[in-house]
């Protein structure tokens, strides 16, 4: 999961602090309204329209089996090739030149690949709601 050094977007969820490498991020924004997608895992909040783009919004806290931390939630848009996916971070975010030892570096691609594998393993059509 580790990527090379460099500035991080850090935030603190209920259990521990995380950092997203700035290179994997296209931008941050305030949370937007999502429409849920039937059959998607619980961590997928749904689809949203963002400046004419269709974004898949994923709840990062749910994905990491965490609960949100303090501060206003932030929508983190990912950089290409994941630029049509956004992570909802349930905590205030800040920039740090380099991660401290206590910060877990996240690789969005790896995190999302795990989620996708989860969908595939369930045959791509079952749902949590059923």
């Amino acid at each position, binding site marked *: 999961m580790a990527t090379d050094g460099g500035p991080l977007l850090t935030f603190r969820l209920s259990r521990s602090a995380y950092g997203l490498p700035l290179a994997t991020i296209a931008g941050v924004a305030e949370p937007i309204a999502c429409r849920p997608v*039937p059959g998607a895992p619980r961590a997928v909040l749904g689809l949203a*329209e963002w400046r004419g*783009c269709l974004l898949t919004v994923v709840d990062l806290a749910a994905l990491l089996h965490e609960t949100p931390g303090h501060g206003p939630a932030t929508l983190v848009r990912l950089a290409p090739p994941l630029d049509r*996916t956004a992570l909802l971070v349930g905590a205030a975010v800040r920039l740090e030149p380099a991660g401290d030892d206590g910060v877990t570096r996240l690789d969005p691609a790896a995190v999302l690949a795990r989620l996708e594998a989860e969908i595939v393993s369930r045959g791509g059509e079952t749902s949590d709601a*059923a």
Partner: protein
Amino acid sequence: MDMARYLDLFLAESAEHLASAEATLVALEGAPDDGDALRRLFRHVHSLKGMAATMGFADMVGVAHALEDLLDLFRGCGAPRALLAYLTLAWEALACLGRIVDAVREGRPGRDGAAAPLARRLRETAASLADLVASRPPLASPAPVQAAPLPSPRVRIPRRRGFRVELDLAPDMLPDSAGAVRLVRALGDLGEVVHLTPPLPLGPDPSAGARMALVVLTDLDPTDLGTRFEALGRVRRFTLEPVARPAPLADLRPTPAHYVRVRADLLDALMQSAVELTLAQGSLAASVADPETARLAERCRRVLAAHHETLMELRLVPFETVAHRLTVGVQDLAKRLGKTVQFTIAGREVRLDRSVLDALVEPLLHVVRNALDHGVEDLETRIDRGKPGPGTIRLTLARSHDRVRVTVEDDGRGLDPEALRRTAIARGFLTPQEADRLGDDEAFALVTLPGFTTALERTEVSGRGVGMDVVRDAVEALGGRVRIRSRLGTGTTIEMDLPQTLAVIQALVVRSAGTLYAVPISAVDRTLALDPARTRRIDGRTFLDTDRGMLELGSLAARVGAAHSGDVGATAAALLSSEPGAGGVLVDEVLGRREILVRPLDAPLRALRSFTGAAILEDGSTALVVDPAVMGRMPSPL
């Protein structure tokens, strides 16, 4: 004289001519060799001049006249492509004419401050070009549309010469684009700068400004020019090259192709921002109360609609781009088979969505080669049958609305419906009774069944159609249909009806269990209001009595894996699958038919099988695009 009446006439006609002139100029940008377009442009400008003269708008007459002269010069020398270098000037002139017409419409005097200098610049340019034109040898344009008469003698030719100048700029003035503007102004003192690379204003990108290239028309001789350049102080190094010959002039625009290659992802991005603009405009219009602003918003909407359409067009690629591949493929095979064939393509200009075209090439190649391989007989047979020696294969494209019909016709041996029926029975596809009931067209359709053509291949009547199942799959995957007509001994026609674009589809927007879905129209045979009298519930499963028999229905939400909503509401409707034998789905409400731009789902949702994508509706909400397979899918056991 009823001036007011004439004024109205003037306004209406001049607006029309201006619009047409602009459209023609756009066309010329794309196809500079189009002599017709140039002539049309000339006529519009000429008409504008006449109307302005009648109404006594001197500024307008001046500019129109000067532009007319310049255009006449290109028209006369038969090298409209050279106009490309002067497009900016032509645009400026049209803009100036437009400003004057607007002023008149708003009751202001029909004058424009920029008109006189502009007219002068136009005249000067025309004069200097006439000089060049006079000294050029006959044009060696690839396909001159028009015979090139000699330049009009009306233009007075001053003693000016053109120089192509390349400048290396001193780095200390960078990235200050204002400095560059000052530099170009200073160059303007030397004479007329007709072409500048990069164009002004210089972008914020500093590396682009380090070199400049321009063509300058001047009375000065090269030595004088050199001293003047040195005097500018900001120029580190320069080269001077006379452009008295016409060839370099033509090279000023190094992309003589009819089409501009554009990166597909840029187009996608452009499309996306256009959609965003449309959405933003929608919410703007909804929040406007002031009638004046509302009118402006409406104008924006119309412009955006046109813009959107243009963008859709931009995604379209002319069939011509793949025509060569097909021709080569056919001729290669003909050589190998020792047959002679006349392969023609009509409707090369018909344009299809890039993705449709890409997906179509291979199946089409297959069909054409089939026609040659299995359809067209060998020479002796053809002569025996009284047919001309070389076979004929005609590929025709025709566009109607948003669909394109591709027809492949041959004059080969044709298909024998009887033989097809026999084979179908022999291979167990049909019972003899079923085969008897089969019409000829339906019999021809047999060749598109998987496994059928392989069976045919082993028989004497191989006909054609090997791999037609693959062709059919590909066409249907694009949302198209395949139809086969044939006449034994005379030839076969294969028709493929395809959507022009893939990205935009017609869909029914429906609601099921509170969520919006878009069901592709092509997947729906029809919609029915849910009539309780014709609905049966057996073991918790719902059946609908239709003229297609009892069909099983399931809630759309349940089929795509959402929690089952239970009872459906009063507005409930059933959507019957267009797949024969398949059932249909129940929805709570049909919101209507929409043209939607399908966006693929991204990681991680692309793994979901129920949806092929999603679309943003006009109000900014999103609808999931349902995979047609869901329509016929059996409801999952609850």
